């Protein structure tokens, strides 16, 4: 049961405070959409790939980290190419792939607890609203993050089990057990939290 994508290391990205990484990511994500020059976009992509090498992502992790997001980037680029034109497709590809890789770099160099502390601080000015308690919010966010990979894996397992029994892809047969099995764990999880005296 491991949610964290965190990679131990000593790079600048590891040492930067969380807020600055997210601020940079936001700035880049807006700036990328203002760039239309392919030379610049290719240079950015190359730099971002160098960054991956610099934070020393092990080869084994590369596939898990990038296979799905990059596959999706390619799909979206093809969609953009079909709907618009080749230029738009390539723009989508370079912008999105750089962003995805950059976001992944931030993810693997940020401890979840640092990220949660960051969100808590962000919400602090909002704590006058009754149900927004920063502690509760960050607990909820970290619980969610913790369970996304597991629920995804559960979904794949259900799909596989159904395929083994000859059932073809059926959304209802997949989603019903996925939700029921997940919600049934809520009792155990909330007991565990209460035992650790959440309040």
């Amino acid at each position: 049961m491991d949610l964290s994508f965190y990679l131990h290391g000593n790079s600048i990205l590891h040492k930067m405070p969380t807020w600055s990484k997210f601020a940079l990511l936001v700035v880049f994500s807006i700036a990328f959409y203002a760039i239309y020059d392919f030379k610049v976009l290719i240079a950015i992509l190359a730099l971002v790939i160098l960054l991956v090498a610099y934070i020393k992502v092990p080869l084994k992790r590369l596939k898990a980290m990038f296979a799905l997001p990059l596959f999706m980037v390619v799909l979206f680029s093809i969609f953009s190419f079909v709907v618009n034109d080749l230029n738009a497709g390539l723009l989508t590809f370079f912008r999105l792939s750089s962003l995805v890789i950059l976001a992944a770099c931030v993810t693997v160099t940020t401890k979840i607890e640092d990220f949660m502390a960051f969100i808590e601080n962000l919400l602090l000015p909002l704590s006058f609203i009754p149900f927004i308690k920063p502690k509760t919010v960050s607990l909820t966010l970290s619980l969610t993050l913790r369970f996304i990979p597991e629920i995804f894996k559960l979904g794949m397992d259900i799909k596989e089990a159904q395929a083994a029994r000859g059932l073809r892809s059926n959304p209802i047969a997949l989603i019903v057990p996925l939700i029921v099995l997940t919600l049934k764990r809520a009792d155990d999880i909330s007991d565990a939290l209460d035992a650790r005296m959440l309040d």
Partner: protein
Amino acid sequence: MATKDIVFIALFAAIIAALGFLPAIPVAGIPAPITAQTLGVMLAGTILGPKRGALAVAVFLILVLAGLPLLAGGRGGIEYFVGNSGGFLVGWFFGAYVIGFILKNFISDTQINIRAHFIILIACFLGGICVVYLPGILWIARNTGSSFAEVYLGSLIFIPGDFLKAIVAMLVTVAVRRIYPIALK
């Protein structure tokens, strides 16, 4: 809010995220496969109820805003809120609330009869489509400088897919509520 409510909210936000990663559902007759993520938004309302459903969507959206690639297709980040999809994302929050609100007030927690099926379908249509599309269309119209009617006509091609999702959401809701009923909150 009790610990269990928080856990329900967190788990459902994770379900919405996981549904975006699961392979899209191919539907006969519609060229683009529909993703299960908006289905997850409807289900948040029908299974958890208005408050918890909307909060589960909010938790999911905060994580997307933080730059995590959780939207269907591995997308995420603040640019999706500023970009053309922004209005729809905000609409998800209100949509889940409206769906939960209708269910909470018009169906009983225990009895699932034909009338309940119908109400769930209507709720998913009103909340999951009308409420979601309103800010979505307004935002695109504002961004692109086109009229509400133009954008509305343009988005009509997505309605059949979303209507199918409302039907799937209804069937899933009925099945889940029979196996594991949760009081709507």
